[in-house]
Structures are given as C-alpha cells and as structure tokens.
C-alpha cells in the first residue's frame, strides 16, 4: 500500500469520535501546561502520561500528540501576553509578540501565532507522509553496528548543540547512559549497580527519570524566581483575528519558515528553539522593515511560530522511523511509546501500520482542533495564566507523584523521583543541560545491546564500527557534530579578520 492509502486508513482510525475527543482533551491540557512558565512540551507529556496508562495504544498516542501540540501552542500564549515563554521554542515569540500585546495588538499576535503554528504543523505533517516510509525502509538495512553509531551520533549532536559548555553536555549524556546500566544485565543476568536493592534489579524506569528531571526539577527551580502573585496581563479581548494587510506581511515568512523548521527539526539536537530563532533571524534579514523587528513586527511572530511547530513534527521522524529521538520532548514521546509495548523504529511502520498512520492522521486533526481552540477560545484559555504560580506549581507536584505511582504502583519510586528531581535541579544550577541525560537514559539500553551484538558478531574487533560505508558516514557525522560548534566561531572570526584586512588594504590604496 502506498503512503496515501495508508494515510486514508489512518484517518478512519483518527476520525473515531473517541479519538477526536482524546486529541481535544490532550490539546487543551497540553495548552494549559505549555502556558506555565518553564513547563514546555516535554514536561507536559511527562506529567500527563498517567492519563493514558489505561488507554489502548492508538488512543494513548493520539492523546500524547495532542498534549505535545497543545504545549507548543500554549508556550507562545504566555510569551505574547506576559513575556514569559513556556519553553525554549517559544522564546522567539516574546521578541515581537509581547511588544504587540503592549501596544494593543494582542489579538493579532495571538491569532497569527495560532495560524502560523497551524500552517507550520500541517505543512510538516504533509512532508512527513512522504518522507517517513522511505526513511524507515532505508533503516531496515541497519545492523547493530549502524544502530550503535546512529545512537552515538544522535546523542553527541544533542550534547554538542546544547547551550553553554559542550563538555557539560557530554557529561550529562554519559550520566544518562550510566543510569541506563543499573539493573540486571538482560544478556548475562549479572546484577549491575543495584547496591543489593531488590527494587533496582529491574532497572531505573526512564519514565520516572523523565518526570523527575522535567517536572519535579522544574518545580524545584521555580522556587528561585517564583513571583508573589499573578502577572498583569490583558484578560479581555476583541476579535482574535488579523487584517488583510497583516496577512499579506506574514504569508511568505510562514511559507518559508515551515519547510525550514521541518528540516531543522529532523536533525538531532537542533529542535524547535534553534528552528524558531534561526527563522526569526532569516526573516529579519529578508524583511523590508528590519527596524520594526523587536518592536512588534507581526512577521516576527509568524515565522518562528511556523518554524517551531514544523520542527516539532520533523523531530518525530527520526524517533518514529529510526527509533532514535533527537530532542528531550521526542525522547519523552518515545518513552510513552515504549511504555505501551511498542518499539519505535523501522519495523513499527511495517507491523503497526494502523497505529503509525492513525497517529499521523491525528496530527492533521489535532492541528485543526488546536487552531480552533487557540483562536476563538484563546480568551478563555489564557485565563489559566491569571492563576498564581504558587498554586499551579504545587498542583504540578501532586501530578508528578501520582504519575510516578501509576507507573509501577510502588512508593519506592517516590524516592527515585526525589533523587533525580534534586539531581535535575543541581545539574541545571551548575549549568549542565538535562536533555542529553534524558535522551541517553531512554536509548541507553538499546545502545548497549547494539554495541554488544556488534562486538559479538565481530568477535571482539572494534574496527567493525568503521567497516561499512554507512558506518563511516555516521562516524564522520558524529565527529562533524562535535567539531562544528568549535569550528564555526573560529571560521567566522577568521573570515572577519580576512575581510578587515582586505578593507584595510583597499583603504590604503
């Protein structure tokens, strides 16, 4: 069956009334969580996971996607209205969205962010329909060597693309891999790092680590900068829509930013934050009115919003088709899939067509529902922002504990949650990025198994990792991803100095 026929089949699954209801509920809850400062899509999916524990795999995945999308939409609501982005991907929406709301154009800013998000998400899902199957077919040829190197590439790209000190990114990654080695070794039955505790023999559940780092860690961080009460914001809105003139200014930035965002999203480590910031800068450079950027240029909201939603769809491709997540949020989504007993990767597209295509079809439906929720009902949803954080954060805490209990029905996991929550807090305080750790915890076991299988096949010869052309390409990509952030500023300064010398010579002549 070709992709189009499979998509139609997916629509019959996604259009079932219960699934539409779940994607709507997921979208509303995701939007609300996404609006809370510091809580982005990763946290949203992490704390709302228990809602899906008793659902079937299709309904659970569709709900999770609704949450993921909703949080992406929600993040920009708080950026526009209170200048507080829900997560990194919504930072660019503060640059012009907040000045727009300050000058009485909040309605236009809210409308264009939802329209651009809808457009970006839909275009990216269309591209996904055509790209996902070929990628998964290609990945069927991967052996353990290629898989191991693919994991290494995805992890090192994520670690080296993180803001700040790259060494800290790699340390965070290694700590994540170490956590994944706790428990009984599945191949030899040897107890590893269990300290004699029976509860650790099954390993540390990656879902608890995710909830601890992304939800509990964020709440602990919030003690430092929590405000005493609610922020002043507009609560009464006129018609949330844009004028023809504004639409004309935005249409091309949206068209340009959507495929661009998708491409950036596919790359491991890049994700929504980089996509939105890059598309913002691109539009500023291309604009006829660059001086308006930062003061309320509507295309300054449209472009990054289209790009970050497209990136969120693009990021699902390596996760679904290869089984390799490229960002913290897709890592959480992958965790949710694995919890449902599904192994993301090429075989998912061969064996679970109804689930995969139901999910892709639900992305189209989810986008429509979220655009509806975020345009006519925006005025109602943003009232959540009026609830003081000092009430919202304890509620998030309550949800993290109930979520943890629902995973294994064991209160021992509360201690694991607290330990990793505190670890997440200290890592963030010492400026260690946490996404590489979470990513590594999730792929760690598969990565080690691929390594061991390759090691066995080659009879202990490590050169097997450089034998096939694909392995060599992956090795080059890994080295490139590590070196690129080091080389690019050096190349830039070298280029600048050369240009200066040329200019000086011209002046001398």
């Amino acid at each position: 069956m070709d992709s189009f026929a499979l998509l139609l089949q997916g629509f019959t699954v996604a259009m079932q009334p219960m699934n539409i209801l779940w994607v709507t509920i997921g979208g509303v809850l995701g939007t609300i969580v996404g609006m809370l400062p510091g809580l982005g899509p990763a946290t949203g999916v992490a704390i709302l996971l228990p809602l899906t524990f008793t659902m079937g795999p299709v309904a659970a995945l569709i709900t999770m996607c609704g949450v993921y999308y909703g949080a992406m939409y929600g993040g920009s609501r708080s950026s526009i209205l209170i200048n507080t982005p829900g997560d990194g991907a919504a930072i660019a929406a503060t640059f012009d969205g907040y000045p727009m709301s300050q000058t009485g154009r909040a309605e236009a800013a809210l409308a264009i962010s939802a329209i651009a998000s809808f457009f970006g998400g839909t275009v990216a899902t269309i591209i996904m329909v055509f790209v996902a199957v070929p990628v998964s077919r290609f990945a069927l040829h991967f052996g353990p060597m290629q898989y191991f190197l693919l994991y290494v590439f995805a992890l090192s790209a994520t670690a080296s693309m993180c803001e700040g000190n790259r060494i800290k990114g790699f340390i965070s990654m290694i700590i994540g891999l170490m956590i994944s080695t706790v428990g009984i070794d599945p191949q030899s039955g040897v107890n590893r790092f269990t300290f004699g505790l029976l509860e650790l023999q099954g390993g540390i559940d990656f879902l608890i680590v995710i909830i601890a780092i992304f939800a509990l860690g964020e709440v602990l961080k919030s003690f430092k900068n929590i405000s005493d009460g609610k922020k002043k914001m507009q609560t009464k809105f006129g018609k949330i829509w844009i004028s023809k003139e504004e639409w004309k200014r935005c249409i091309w930035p949206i068209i340009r930013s959507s495929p661009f965002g998708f491409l950036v999203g596919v790359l491991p480590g890049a994700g929504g934050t980089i996509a939105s910031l890059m598309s913002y800068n691109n539009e500023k450079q291309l604009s006829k009115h660059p001086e308006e950027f930062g003061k309320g240029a509507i295309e300054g909201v449209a472009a990054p919003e289209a790009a970050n939603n497209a990136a969120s769809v693009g990021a699902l491709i390596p996760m679904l088709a290869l089984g390799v997540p490229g960002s913290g949020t897709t890592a959480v989504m992958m965790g949710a899939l694995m919890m449902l007993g599904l192994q993301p990767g090429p075989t998912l597209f061969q064996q679970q067509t109804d689930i995969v295509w139901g999910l892709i079809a639900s992305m189209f439906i989810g986008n429509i529902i979220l655009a509806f929720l975020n345009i006519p009902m925006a005025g109602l949803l943003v009232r959540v922002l009026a609830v003081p954080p000092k009430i919202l954060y304890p509620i998030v805490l309550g949800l993290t504990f109930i979520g943890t209990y629902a995973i294994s029905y064991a209160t021992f996991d509360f201690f694991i949650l607290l330990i990793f929550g505190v670890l997440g807090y200290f890592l963030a305080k010492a400026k260690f990025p946490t996404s590489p750790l979470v990513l590594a915890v999730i792929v760690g076991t598969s990565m080690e198994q691929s390594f061991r299988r390759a090691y066995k096949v080659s009879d202990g010869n490590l050169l097997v990792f450089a034998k096939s052309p694909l392995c060599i390409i992956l090795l080059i990509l890994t080295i490139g991803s590590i070196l690129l952030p080091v080389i690019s500023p050096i190349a830039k300064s070298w280029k600048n100095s050369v240009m200066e010398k040329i200019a000086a010579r011209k002046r001398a002549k």
Partner: protein
Amino acid sequence: MNISLLSALVVELIGFIYTFSALTLPSATIGRSYEPKIFPALLGICLLILGGVLIIQEILAIKKKTKEENSDNNMKFGDSEKKIAITVLNGVVYALLFNPIGYVFSTILFLMVELLTFGGKKALKKSIIIAVLFSAIAYLIFDVGLGIYLPKSFLGIF
C-alpha cells in the same frame, strides 16, 4: 566553594566510583565473562576524562574572573534552597504515609505543606481548600475514572 568547580569535582568522583564498580562487577557465567563490564567501563573512563577536562576549564575560569564574579557563583543555602529541602523532606514523608493512610489523606497533607511553602502561612484556609479539592478530584479521575488503583485509607472508602 564555587559551584562550577564543585560540580566538576563531583563528576570526577562519580567517574572514579562508577569505573571502579564497573571493573569489579561479577563475571558473566554465559558467553565472555567480561562482557557485562565493557560498556559501563567505557562510560566510566569517558566520564573520568570529561570530568578532568572540566576541572581544568573551571580552574582556568576562576583565575580569569575577578573576586566578585567568583563569589557570585558560590554555593549558598538561601531561601529557595530551604524550600527545596522542605519539598524533598515532604516528599519522603509522603512516600512513607502514602500506603498506610491512603492516597487522599496523604496527598492533602503533602499538598498543604507545599502550598504553604510556595504561598506562605497567610494562605492557610485557601491551601486547605485547594489541597482537599485536588486530592478528591485526582482520586476520582485516576482511581474511579481511569482505573489506576490508589491506596485507600483506614476508612476503606478513599
């Protein structure tokens, strides 16, 4: 002590302990005896190297910075750290009470402490109402609605 340098030293210490534990893991009885140790040992060695590089980086950074900049980065036990300690302790008590007194009562206590920690003692009445409402609604949604069975209290009802 400077938090960046301290974190680098902790990383190095973890690297030592982990590598040592990896190398002293029991041998496998099936296949190659050293196989369960290879991957962890590689990770430990990587962490030792990265930790070492970070320590050097941090020492160089401290030398470059002025005294004031360094004192800004020092470990402090301020108000927010106190609240974190309360939350962790509250979490431990919650874990211990969760099964014996049931979900609803333990959650009311846990949330009340958290709401007071976040909002201050002035909001006692409000905190009680929110804690009771959240616990009851969460119980209804998760236990009754979603079939995620939560421990019941001595009353046997919830």
